[in-house]
């Protein structure tokens, strides 16, 4: 467990000491700010606070998924690219500790970044009321969605030799898992139910956005994260010996 924390802390330091972390955080906050101003607040002044909040979580989920792909692309691919993986590989560290440490660092960074945007829902207080439960559910949803996307990104990063390739692979997987939902809407029972249940966003995120927590959705996102991390560990184990 010490090794996981060591790796996570070093990796988090790398996010904070290099430009990439700040660039991604700034871009996400900027885009979220514009979307919040243009759509969530909108031109009508008679909107309900819950509608504004729901809109905020709606587009935040999109930027979270995109940010996750970019945050996770360097995790393992960069170490392979620059040869620093040897330091970890020649140390008494297990593959799962490497993968978990890397994933944890990106999740912590994503959480910090999301927290930095929390002034937006707080702005609702200026002219309306805020349901704490709704905000908590929305943020839990963002964190769970982010965790799943980061885990998929970690897998992409474990598979690819370069960061660019990692981003392309992970982006492809995330987009693929989101649009499985479309398949669900054009197929018939029971196939459509399976597609809808598998989709990364379609059926599982909107409840959070509306302030509702279903155990089903929580389990789904945790399962996706677990599966992607598990495969990443296996990929790394297979790679280590070649």
């Amino acid at each position, binding site marked *: 467990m*010490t*090794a996981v924390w*060591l*790796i996570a802390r*070093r990796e988090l*330091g*790398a996010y904070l*000491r*290099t430009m990439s972390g700040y660039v991604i955080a700034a871009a996400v906050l900027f885009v979220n700010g514009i979307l919040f101003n243009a759509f969530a607040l909108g031109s009508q002044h008679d909107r309900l606070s819950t509608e504004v909040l729901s809109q905020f979580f709606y587009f935040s989920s999109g930027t979270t998924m995109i940010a996750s792909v970019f945050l996770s692309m360097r995790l393992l691919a960069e170490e392979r690219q*620059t*040869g*620093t*993986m*040897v*330091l*970890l*590989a*020649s*140390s*008494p*560290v*297990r593959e799962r500790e490497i993968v978990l440490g890397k994933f944890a660092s990106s999740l912590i960074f994503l959480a910090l970044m999301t927290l930095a945007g929390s002034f937006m829902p707080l702005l609702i207080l200026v002219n309306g009321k805020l349901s704490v439960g709704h905000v908590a559910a929305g943020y839990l949803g963002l964190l769970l969605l982010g965790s799943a996307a980061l885990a998929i990104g970690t897998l992409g990063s474990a598979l690819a030799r370069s960061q660019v390739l990692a981003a392309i692979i992970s982006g492809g997987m995330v987009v693929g898992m989101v649009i499985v939902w479309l398949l669900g809407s054009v197929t018939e029972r029971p196939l459509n139910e399976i597609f809808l249940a598998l989709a990364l966003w379609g059926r599982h995120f909107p409840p959070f956005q509306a302030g509702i927590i279903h155990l089903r959705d929580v389990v789904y996102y945790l399962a996706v994260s677990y599966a992607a991390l598990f495969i990443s560990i296996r990929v790394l184990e297979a790679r*280590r*010996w*070649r």
Partner: protein
Amino acid sequence: MIEVHKLSKYFGERAAIREISFSIAQGEVVGFLGLNGAGKTTTLRILGCLLLPTSGTVRVDGLEVAENPYEIRRRIGFLPDTPPLYPEMTVGAYLTFAARLRQVPGRDAAARVAEAEEKTALSDMHREVIGELSHGYRQRVGVAQAIVHKPALLILDEPSAGLDPAQIIEMRNLLHGLRGEHTVLISSHFLTEISQTCDRLLVIQAGELVGQGSEDELASAMGQGGIIEAEVRGQPAGIAERLAQLSGVTRAHRRSTSEAATVFEITTSADIRPEVARMLVAAGCDLLRLEKSTSRLESIFMTLTHQPSGDRPSGERQ
């Protein structure tokens, strides 16, 4: 410490190393000598538990690499051909990270880092960011990360690669300082480097071990004694013939002559410098210089690896 038996490694159809066997005792400093692509790095990576052997057994400290990689990694320090450095970290933070990864307890880490920095002359660089260091310093940080947890076995893959002559001498002194504390395995194609640092040499060529032993053992195994160089004042006549008659001398000839001095090159089966000195003095010569030629190792190496010795890889000797 290390037992390698019939080790082979194939990458697809291509054999990187073929059935090599050797053993290294505790505390030995062993040089792994070979041209680029001979299989040095592959062998070291297997010993460092970074690669699985295709066949054969490799034991480090009695543990089999394929079965106990985790245990072995606790006992080794590994410097790959490119040092695995994180450019955004400071030297101190990086070495602390390396020490903690190798299970040095948190309360000892600072002392171990300071010790490693002292041995590698990096104490002044503790707060410097690695990305801003010169190549020589980075190489030293690479060595420091390998020794920071005081491993029983130290594996250094070409520690002198890309260094300038002054840095090579510093690196040689550094490696000398590591003697005694660790069993050390150094790979190199720097011939002089390795003969001065190591107790024993393993010569590898095209994936096969073509010779092993100390420099003298390798030389005598090949029926090749040393070469002695003698420089005398002036241009005395008939000396080469008299040198050739000394017992143990296989060949003696005048290598170069200038107005002031003459250099004789004497090929011998043993180190007979005292006899040569007495003979030259008795013959009335002013002896200016008498030494074993440093090119001996190179000629051994070239013979073992079937390279014509005139065709030296440029830049590989200082």
